[in-house]
């Protein structure tokens, strides 16, 4: 029986056409993944027909035979409350902060008219989605839970009223690689057990491979290819689907050619960082525990680990961008001064690129000034003309059109903004780049081009790279060596290919499995 049928669906916001003529169908209990880059209209396709966006919907969208296009808000509300469950991308903000998990689960449980659940029933529901200590969780407020735990709780709430259809809009994009695989598997299992249909939205074709029966690839508001997942992944018919598949970094792709490695550049010894424990607990949390790490000239090293493993804290401590409690960092054999005593030339040697490109650019500045700022500070030897020339040069080097130099960050796409951030980092002529999840906020296709750019720059300039990522496949594309961190310690390190082929530590094995 067909549960959901979309037929020539058009979605507009104002004068802008977001989706044009989209048609697809989901059988009861089966799953469909809508895959596409951001801005392709995939989220609007699954939200607007249910009245969850201000967009105007035309065409036909029938759930269980009932036409939702043109239905009144009260009717749509009833459909959302009784027949459909939703899971969104941002687990950190999707829970109401001042209500306990139990209160919110009870509300979700009863929204379709079911009797109030007992505590035991609710605890069982939380246990089913893989939350530990479910009874304790019922009385906790959302901020006590980690991102992965909150997404599990949200999934429990989305299925508590036993919907016929689960709509999951990028449910794992905000989570780290290990959690992604677990949450995807959980969604698939729950749908099987409940006989629920699943409408999955993702930008990552590889991620949906195991968990969707069918795939519809969207590009610029149109569905360009649709079919069973195996068929589309194995033998894509459209160019766009082919590009999308090629762009996702895979562990079984041929190893990339990497540049030569020179003399030691950074030698960090016994680096420890601790933070005051959050909340009412006393004492300090050891985020990085006596870690040694080396990076040579021209060498790209990835620090890989789950969220909370201490990988960002370690890299920031080495770069003197964050606190450091103990340990020594040597730069070309000489001790690197502490944070406050860093001289311009120390800073010029090591430049960072962060995860969220738009947030790391000043929204009021023009691209030209953003790229010029570190040059003025860190390269006092350059005069105005030389700075302007250098800005032009690095913008050209990262492949940005010169006309973009007078734009502000809000007028850039995510990929363009990240290129600006890379140009800014390249400006002072660093010997090493610190890439803190530099591609994880970007779409697969865009992330692929940014990784290509970084690999090119690395080879050309003999740049050393310290890359922080939760994704082994991304690390492998760029790095000579991989360091795996867990709970503030290095659990395994070695050449990228060897480590991925024969992981020795269980955490590494888990990361490898998550990237397959």
């Amino acid at each position, binding site marked *: 029986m067909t549960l959901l049928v979309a037929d020539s669906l058009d979605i507009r916001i104002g004068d802008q056409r977001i989706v044009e003529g989209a048609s697809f169908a989901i059988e009861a209990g089966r799953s469909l993944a809508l895959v596409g880059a951001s801005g392709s209209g995939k989220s609007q396709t699954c939200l607007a027909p*249910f009245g*969850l966006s201000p967009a105007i919907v035309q065409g036909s969208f029938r759930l269980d035979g009932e036409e939702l296009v043109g239905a009144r808000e009260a009717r749509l509300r009833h459909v*959302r409350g009784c027949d459909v469950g*939703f899971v*969104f991308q*941002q687990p950190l903000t999707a829970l109401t902060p*001042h209500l306990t998990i139990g209160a919110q689960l009870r*509300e979700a449980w009863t929204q379709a008219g079911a009797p109030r659940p007992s505590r035991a029933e609710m605890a069982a529901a939380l246990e089913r989605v893989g939350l530990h200590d479910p009874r304790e969780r019922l009385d906790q407020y959302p901020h006590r839970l980690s991102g992965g735990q909150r997404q599990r709780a949200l999934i429990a*709430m989305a299925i508590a009223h036993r919907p016929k259809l689960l709509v999951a809009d990028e449910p794992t994009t905000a989570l780290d690689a290990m959690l992604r695989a677990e949450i995807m598997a959980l969604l698939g299992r729950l749908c099987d057990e409940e006989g629920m249909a699943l409408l999955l939205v993702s930008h990552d074709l590889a991620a949906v491979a195991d968990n969707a029966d069918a795939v519809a690839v969207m590009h610029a508001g149109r569905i360009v290819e649709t079919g069973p997942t195996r068929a589309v992944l194995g033998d894509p018919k459209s160019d766009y689907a082919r590009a999308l598949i090629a762009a996702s970094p895979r562990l079984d792709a041929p190893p990339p050619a990497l540049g030569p490695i020179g003399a030691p550049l950074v030698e960090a010894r016994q680096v420890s960082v601790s933070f005051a424990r959050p*909340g009412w607990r006393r004492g300090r949390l050891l985020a990085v525990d006596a870690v040694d790490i080396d990076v040579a000239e021209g060498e790209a090293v990835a620090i890989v680990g789950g969220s909370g493993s201490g990988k960002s804290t370690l890299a920031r401590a080495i770069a003197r961008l964050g606190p450091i409690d103990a340990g020594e960092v040597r730069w070309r054999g000489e001790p690197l001064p502490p944070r406050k005593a860093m001289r311009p030339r120390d800073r010029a040697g090591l430049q960072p690129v962060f995860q969220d490109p738009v947030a790391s650019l000043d929204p009021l500045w023009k691209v030209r000034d953003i790229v010029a700022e570190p040059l003025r500070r860190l390269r006092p030897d350059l005069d105005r003309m030389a700075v302007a020339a250098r800005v032009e040069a690095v913008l050209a080097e990262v492949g940005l059109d010169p006309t973009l130099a007078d734009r502000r960050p809000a007028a850039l796409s995510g990929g363009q903004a990240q290129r600006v951030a890379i140009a800014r980092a390249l400006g002072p002529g660093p010997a090493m780049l610190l890439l803190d999840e530099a591609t994880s906020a970007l779409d697969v296709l865009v992330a692929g081009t940014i990784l290509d750019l970084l690999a090119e720059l690395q080879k050309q300039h003999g740049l050393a790279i310290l890359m922080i990522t939760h994704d082994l496949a991304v690390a492998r594309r760029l790095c000579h060596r991989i360091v795996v961190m867990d709970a503030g310690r290095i659990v395994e390190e070695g050449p990228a290919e060897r480590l991925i082929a024969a992981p020795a530590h269980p955490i590494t094995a888990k990361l490898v499995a998550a990237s397959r």
Partner: protein
Amino acid sequence: MIDLIRRRLLTALPTLAAVVVLSFVLMRVAPGGPFDGERPLDPQTRAALMAAYGLDRPLPEQVGRYVWRLLHGDFGPSLVYRDFSVTDLIARGLPISLTLGGLALLLALLLGLVTGMAAAARPGTRTDRGLMLGATLLTALPSFVVGPLLALAFGLWAGWLPVSGWGDGYPPHMILPVIALALPATGAIAKLARAGLAEVLAQDHVRMARARGLSRSRILIVHALRPALVPVASYLGPAAAGLLTGAVVIETVFALPGLGRYFVQGALNRDYPLVLGVVTLYAALIILFNLLADLAYGWLDPRARR
């Protein structure tokens, strides 16, 4: 939470001490004295009075003696109302002022929140803009303008309500002063609640609640209102203080025998202990209200609990 209360009480003591000492010195620096009437006293009587109240001693000693008595709960004698101690006067005026201020605060909260919610529920519509224009007008009009206008309209022209005196707490006497005192705060609370709700209603957890098919009113009240009240709570501390000082004006306008009247009279008469007593009390109340506002944060947003 207990830790917060303890820390606040510890910082309250030096604050209060500073208020007392500064006010003490300021009062003395101001020209004139408690016994400077229209008919000058003869020097001997004056000196005897000064000695009787200890006003002839060095200033630091006077401050010390005052603080010492204050620590024992004694506000000292009034210099002008000769038969009363300051404690007696406060005991008479405070219940009236607290009733007035408390009712005004409740009314302002009630009206302000309802207005703010009504406006935020229909953003950008005429209702929204009309209500917010009204709120701006209310905030702009001080209570000494609103008070006499209300008294004119409802007291003198319509003749519905009394415009002067407390009537021993007979409710109709309270209506006009409470409204006059509440209206400016109502406008501010309405604007804060509207802004707070607009921010919260755009957040992810509200979209989540909408996705669950909950009704608009349930989303507004259960999922959005509490976090939206954080700015209102931070306004309530200063607002309570404003209502106390606003009461000084309103009590004069409506001839109410509250604390504010004693305060004004005390200041004009250079009745040092009376003014100091009222100032100390006001300061203590303001510290208390700010503490209550901070405690309210914890309830409104569990993330703020420490």
